[in-house]
């Protein structure tokens, strides 16, 4: 497998889960430090793929606690011991992990999912509805995301259900700061970093450098801009000219994902079945 992935042709047969994994994997290089939280099958598979292909020296903190682990495959939980297998170090959370995470020098990139994400990349994992104390839906809560949103991290959002329900004009509650009201609102609070990309099951999006509005970067093969706009709860910025297609996975990448990294198809959890 060592070099096959480099010359491998595009896969004819792949799923959008696999495309999301390969797109995310491309973002990580040797010596980047990355970590994952709960129910994070897509990022975990992406880290494992990057380590098996272009970034063997990627430094992964499994569950933000187990340094450079060697799980034999993606397990049923991304917050349980099988993921930390053969770690080099266990990072005690209170004293250790948050020191490295808050410091600013390390763990620059962070992958995250959100129940709602708005046009300025603000995320909501807390409550749906207007009344915080009697919400329409109580979501799990922000966990470490609110911190990651404010301490200079580059945030990469993944969303397996691109819809007006999950991509909204304004989140009901800001669990983690994105670009707030847009423009320089984030900078005025002294916050660095912020959301960089949103990888959904339909498209890849980034943020306009000035207005900080979410902007289409590439559509996944077979998806039209109209379909995308209909599936988004706000007006997505669309650059002039032809919109590029997201690069599909290669044959070798798909083979690695299916046979080595995730033979139990944990990556398909979290996708809505229609």
């Amino acid at each position, binding site marked *: 497998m060592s070099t096959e992935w480099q010359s491998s042709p595009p896969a004819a047969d792949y799923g959008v889960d696999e495309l999301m994994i390969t797109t995310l994997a491309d973002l990580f290089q040797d010596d980047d430090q990355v970590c994952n939280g*709960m*129910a994070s099958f897509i990022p975990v598979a992406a880290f494992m793929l990057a380590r098996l292909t272009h970034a063997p020296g990627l430094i992964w903190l499994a*569950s933000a*606690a*187990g340094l450079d682990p060697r799980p034999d495959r993606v397990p*049923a*939980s*991304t*917050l*349980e*011991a*099988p993921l*930390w297998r053969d770690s080099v170090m*266990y*990072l*005690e*959370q*209170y*004293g250790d992990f*948050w020191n490295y995470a*808050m410091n600013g020098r390390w763990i620059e990139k962070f992958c995250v999912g959100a129940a709602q994400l708005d046009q300025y990349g603000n995320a909501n*994992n*807390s409550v749906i509805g207007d009344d*915080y*104390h*009697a*919400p*329409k*839906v*109580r*979501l*799990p*809560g*922000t*966990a*470490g*995301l*609110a*911190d990651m*949103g*404010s*301490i200079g991290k580059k945030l990469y959002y993944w969303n397996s259900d691109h819809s007006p329900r999950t991509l909204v004009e304004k989140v009901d*509650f*800001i*669990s*983690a*700061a994105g670009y*707030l009201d847009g423009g320089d609102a*984030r900078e005025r*609070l*002294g*916050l660095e970093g912020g959301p960089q990309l949103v990888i959904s099951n339909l498209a890849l999006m980034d943020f306009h450098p000035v207005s900080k509005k979410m902007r289409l970067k590439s559509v996944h093969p077979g998806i039209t801009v109209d379909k995308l706009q209909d599936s988004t709860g706000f007006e997505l910025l669309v650059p002039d000219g032809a919109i590029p297609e997201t690069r599909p996975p290669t044959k070798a990448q798909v083979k690695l994902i299916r046979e080595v990294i995730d033979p139990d198809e944990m990556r398909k*959890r979290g996708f809505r079945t229609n």
Partner: protein
Amino acid sequence: MQEKITTLVEAAELVQDDDVVALQNMATQAAPMALVRELIRQEKRGLGLVVLVGGMAVDWLAAAGVIDRLIGAAVTMEQFGLCQQYRKAVESGWIKVEELSESLLNARLGAGARNLPFLPTRGAIGSDLIAQNPDNLKLIDDPFKGIQVVACRALVPDVALVHAHRADRYGNVQSEPTILWPDIGIMPKAAKCVIVTAEKIVDTDILRRNPDRTVLPGFIVDAVVEVPYGAHPTSFFPYYGYDSDFHRAWAEAARDDEKAASFMDRYVRTPLTQQEYLDAVGGAALLGRLENWEQRG
């Protein structure tokens, strides 16, 4: 040195109605579930719960009407879904939530442990968590450079409940090599009273072989109870995995109040001892599977 060994019943009696109780728990991991069941059997009321990431324990305490407020960063059973009884209680306004990020919670507990009025963090700035919680979080200027930080008011729980691999009769607590969440790293140090359940009570000489694995000194611990499989149905690495069938059964029952109540009668209220409980959930055959980390899905 004072001996701390007691029973689950007596240990749970240290928790008073209306107390703020910090609970070790990470989604499907490491919760002192035997203590949680005893709190429910003793019909505690008005408890506030502090959790980093609460799981089934929170759902049971919510379903039994034991807690009416929660301070924490998340509540979920991860792959087994949201805690439905808790969710319903929050949505109806019965349980009030003070949602904190991990660094906000750690700072509040850290200040409690150090007897400081507050500790600052740079986490969560720009989020609505701060404006939502003016009693405990305030943006203040760093007196040296003038940048803004969040002052997080000290949190001193009345009681901390933790589960550990082993302890001696004096309350010295040891862990096997494992991932240590802030639960045991800071909660017991901030709390006024610490109750420990341990898989095994051992002679102090056993602890002396690996003093680097002792994580809590006996002088901060008030009660120790030997409870084998005391974290079931959550996992307790490296000893045993989470019980996936049991989690799935609860997640299903929790969607319906009557089914939830009958589930709790069967597994929480009826078995009065840990052995009765372990027999009810599947006995030796189940425990053997969990020790081999044979999860079903």
